[in-house]
């Protein structure tokens, strides 16, 4: 297949990924099986990125002769550059310019995507280190929340610090606010986050949001995936023996409404409805997707990632 055909197909995959992401914002099945939905979201993101970079590179190497494919074209290009030939032979100047621009844009996009990912991760690691340093000086244990750190702070706060030395942190305000069974529910929820490394699931979306802070689609995608991650942790928490959905739900309700009024109103429009969605899902859980439907979602995710990869490698 020619590089131009590759470029067209890769561009189609990129556009398809965006379409798919748009559609995923408005369907209701993801909250029935959050894990499968999150897998599909990851696939959409990865396929979109790969295809966009690939399409630009494909245009860039389209002058490298027939039948080489994108990666083959890049190899030819590298060899040619090593031989001291900056331009492919027999091509009009305008076309050479277009190809060069596209090539540079492809590499720039690739570098930018990897760069924001690394930066988001590094920032998260740094923020966690600072938290650990402060916790070492300030936090103490409490028999009400075995295994968690307690900070003397009146407002309700509960969170976990993922990582190799993971940590669950709870404020004194939370201990006062919640009943023992509800505290157990909170700890189970946070432990589910830590065990499944949900932070790594979210990192690509955090970094994309940093790369394009104005993009409404990316912001919405991030919120949707974040909510699905919370639902997944809720589900996992309920596997703890003796823990009832109602306790997790009342913990959420008490927690979410405790700080109401203190928080700035503008910031909250973002989170509107998420708590309600989690609570109503806990109290009247929707049936999970059937095995066949879940398998279809997984297959779709695999195909979505495989398509741009194949197009990049295929000669």
């Amino acid at each position, binding site marked *: 297949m020619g590089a131009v055909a590759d470029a067209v197909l890769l561009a189609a995959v990129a556009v398809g990924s965006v379409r798919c992401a748009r559609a995923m914002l408005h369907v209701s099945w993801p909250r029935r099986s959050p894990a499968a939905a999150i897998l599909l979201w990851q696939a959409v993101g990865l396929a979109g990125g790969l295809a966009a970079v690939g399409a630009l590179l494909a245009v860039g190497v389209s002058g490298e002769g027939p039948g080489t494919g994108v990666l083959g074209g890049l190899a030819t290009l590298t060899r040619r550059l090593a031989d001291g030939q900056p331009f492919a032979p027999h091509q009009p100047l305008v076309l050479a310019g277009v190809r060069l621009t596209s090539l540079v844009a492809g590499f720039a996009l690739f570098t930018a995507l990897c760069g924001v990912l690394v930066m*988001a*991760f590094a*920032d*998260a690691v740094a*923020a*966690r280190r*600072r*938290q650990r*340093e402060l916790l*070492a*000086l*300030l936090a103490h244990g409490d028999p009400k929340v075995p295994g968690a750190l307690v*900070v*003397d*702070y009146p*407002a*309700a*706060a*509960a*969170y*976990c*610090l*993922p990582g190799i030395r993971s940590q669950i*942190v709870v*404020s004194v305000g939370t201990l006062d606010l919640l009943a023992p069974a509800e505290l157990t529910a909170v700890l189970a*929820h*946070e432990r589910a*986050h830590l065990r499944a490394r949900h932070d790594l699931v*979210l*990192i690509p979306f*955090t970094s994309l*949001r940093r790369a394009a802070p104005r993009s409404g689609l990316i912001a919405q995608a991030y919120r949707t995936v*974040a909510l699905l991650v*919370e639902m997944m*942790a809720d589900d996992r928490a309920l596997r703890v023996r003796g823990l009832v959905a*109602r306790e997790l739900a*009342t913990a*959420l*309700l*008490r*927690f*979410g*409404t*405790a*700080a*109401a*009024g203190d*928080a*700035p109103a503008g*910031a*909250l429009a*973002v*989170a*509107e409805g*998420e*708590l*309600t969605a*989690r*609570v109503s899902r806990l*109290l009247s859980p929707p049936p999970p997707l059937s095995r066949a439907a879940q398998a279809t979602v997984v297959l779709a995710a695999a195909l979505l990632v495989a398509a741009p990869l194949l197009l990049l490698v295929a000669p």
Partner: protein
Amino acid sequence: MNRLGDLERAIMEVLWRTDSALTVRQVSNGLPQSLAHTTVMTVLDRLAKKGFARRERDGRAWRYRPAATREAYVAELMLTALAQTGDRDAALARFAQSVSGAEAEVLREALSGLEREHQESATEGDSGVGLWGQWPTRFFSPRSP
């Protein structure tokens, strides 16, 4: 909790307790257990390097004071945890974000509804289940905790 961490914490407690800058000896005296002078000096040095303590020259000795109050550090810790903006989202996972306005009202009602339901089912359970089911609770009820 590692030993070094415990020492740093104990020494910060001493520094936070007073308003004035302390010498290494004064810090040593303030500690619950007696430690070698050099140990205290090393830990104070570490705290200064991490930015938690500030060092100032006083003649031939160094004096140390906390870089910020305990409350300020707690506020920093919790501000990151409670932040509604997304910048630090990747660093930690919160249990729930707080809500306000109409949604909070609806959720509060849902909560009190759930509590009522629970109480009703609990009282039914007490009077109808198990060995004590037929016990005349109006006249005698086991001491409540």
